[in-house]
């Protein structure tokens, strides 16, 4: 099943099961979705439940939040999370903080979803990763799926959750197909929020990643296997809450950690994971934590420059080797 179909089926099933769930965003209806994630939904559920909005992220996000205050369960689609910056006041000040500020009187069962991070050739204003920004806010839950199973289970969990959830997808992964079991295809399938998944068990080094980088980490692990390094790959699935227990348990087993993300380095996800491990498992570390991130620049357009600005499989392989003291630090 492709990630696209996984997301589509998750939204379809949750809308069928609960009449309060509805979808809104630019091009989600008649156009079938900018990335076809909402294909067929307007035809099935009608214009009352699949709303094509005017171009105002601030506007439709505010309206979505207001309807959630009232008791509906909106799914707000951003064509990309880059555009959600125009709505970020509503996401943080209207959604994330309201249950707390109202002392539990107003809950906000809303899902904000859309593509996050780099795609291909879309440059600076369409390639930013927002995991670190949203991940730092109390009141939000932040999820990022990798596989079709992740996409189905986590999106269903997000829609059912009474708290506001930021759901960071990846445009490149939409078309990627993954094997799925019958259990995953069942409408009742759901994944827990806040639990990471060990995608590949290993003994020598822990590599954490989320979204597209999970695939890269798995490929790096295959390469490293041939050189006798046994890598454990953790698919974070949940940025907030971060599954510190699983990460620390893994590092206590392998004694080495490499964090991988496409976003910018300063104040990134790797920085938080590194600190968590230093705070809780310092004595178990046999080497300094290695952090692989995107370059500290706005994303360039030219294909060669873009390739240099995001982590590649080779970067992960080299980082693991450094952590395993197999080569000198640096290049």
């Amino acid at each position: 099943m492709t990630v696209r179909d996984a997301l589509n089926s998750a939204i379809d099933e949750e809308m069928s099961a609960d009449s309060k769930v509805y979808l809104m965003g630019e091009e989600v209806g008649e156009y079938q979705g900018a990335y076809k994630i909402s294909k067929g939904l307007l035809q099935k559920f009608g214009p009352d439940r699949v709303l094509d909005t005017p171009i105002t992220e601030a506007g439709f996000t505010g309206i979505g939040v207001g309807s959630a205050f009232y008791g509906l369960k909106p799914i707000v689609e951003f064509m990309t999370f880059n555009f959600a910056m125009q709505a970020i006041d509503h996401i943080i000040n209207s959604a994330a903080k309201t249950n707390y500020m109202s002392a539990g009187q107003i809950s906000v069962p809303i899902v904000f979803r859309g593509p996050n991070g780099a795609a291909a050739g879309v440059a600076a204003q369409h390639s930013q990763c927002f995991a670190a920004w949203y991940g730092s806010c109390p009141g939000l839950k932040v999820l990022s799926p990798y596989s079709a199973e992740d996409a189905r289970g986590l999106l269903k969990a997000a829609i059912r959750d009474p708290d506001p959830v930021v759901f960071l997808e990846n445009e490149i992964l939409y078309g990627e197909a993954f094997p799925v079991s019958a259990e995953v295809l069942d409408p009742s399938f759901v994944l827990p929020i806040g639990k990471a998944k060990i995608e590949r068990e290993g003994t020598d080094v822990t590599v954490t990643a989320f979204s597209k980088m999970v695939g890269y980490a798995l490929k790096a692990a295959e390469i490293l296997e041939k050189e006798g390094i046994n890598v454990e790959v953790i698919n974070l699935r949940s940025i907030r809450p971060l599954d510190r227990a699983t990460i620390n348990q893994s590092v206590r087993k392998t004694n080495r950690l490499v964090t991988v993300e496409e976003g910018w380095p300063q104040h990134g996800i790797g920085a938080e994971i590194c600190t968590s491990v230093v705070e809780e498992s310092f004595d178990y570390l046999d080497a300094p934590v290695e952090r692989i991130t995107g370059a500290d620049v706005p994303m360039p357009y030219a294909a060669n420059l873009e390739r240099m600005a995001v982590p590649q499989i080779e970067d992960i392989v080299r980082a693991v080797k450094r952590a395993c003291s197999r080569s000198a630090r640096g290049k």
Partner: protein
Amino acid sequence: MNDFMGRKVSYSSQMCFIPEESTNSVPCYRLLSTHGDLLDPSSINELDKELCIEMYRKMVTLQVMDTIFYDAQRQGRISFYVTTIGEEAINIGSAAALNATDVVFSQYREPGVLMWRGFTLQQFANQCYGNEYDLGKGRQMPVHYGSNELNYLTVSSPIATQVPQAVGAAYGLKMDKKDACAVTYFGDGGTSEGDFHAGMNFAAVLGAPVLFICRNNGWAISTPTSEQFRSDGVAIKGQAYGVRSIRVDGNDALAVYFAVKNARKMAVEEFRPILIEALTYRVGHHSTSDDSSKYRSVDEIEYWRTRRDPVARLRMFLQSNRWWDDENEDLLRQDLRTQMMSVLHNAESKKKPGLSNLFEDVYDVIPQNLKEQEQETQAIVGKYPKDYPSDVPLD
């Protein structure tokens, strides 16, 4: 074909620019003269005496509550306050015209709406003191009230964010086929925010049953309306969005009442938004953090406070009909002062919310990391009590 995307176009070879200003300003609806005389004496038959008296009593209550809370802030008893002085007619007149099930999305200068619905003086005080009886559990600054029970959403500071939110709620009411509308209040300054534009536009496109009530009080902190917009106020903007609108004398409680009553009927029965611009004046400072004499003349403030007071205006109407007299007035004001003193004293003497309130409600269910942080904090405060305020219960 004379149409373009579903609308009729009337072509003309006269080049005609729509003027930036109309020769006629949007008319302003009023029922009472500034001296409280009914402009149409026969309309007395449409008025409910008990309702008019109750509206007046609540306007006085609001005025007295504001005066005493403002003084309390000046004395250092509460940290911050925002008065509604001069806008009592908008608050109470509109509140009286709504149903209890209409959902209210306010800015922060509409406590009278909450008061009308039954929020007590004690509850207002508890919120301002952030004590353990505060419905808001000490989470917010003073005047950020809210009550689920009274359908008044907790006040949130960012300007105009409540406008599209109200439209969203109205959409929900429409989908649920409820006999209710959403009501949102904002000031003249709020209409400059992008959210106002998006909210108005969406409400019209979605056919949302929502009332947009603009308190045009002339000032947005120190920015006068002449610097806020160049349009003929706010009501004129309605038609640009396809929203029916009216301008009303915001200091005439009866006019506000009837305008809102009619607007509500249209919103609910016809599934449409209505824009109401209520002209008024912000007699008080923006908040206790402001001294408005720095940017406007004291004479201007005094003129509106003494000669255009909406409370006095309604009183003159009531008294001229012998529905109210000086004795009623004195008794009411004395009683209110006594109540307020007791209410303040009560609120002040209560404990603050316990420590657990720091960590609850961030999420629906408290996550493990916050439970751990709470335990750590309890342990530290228990171990070093002298380093922490003595009035924070550890539970």
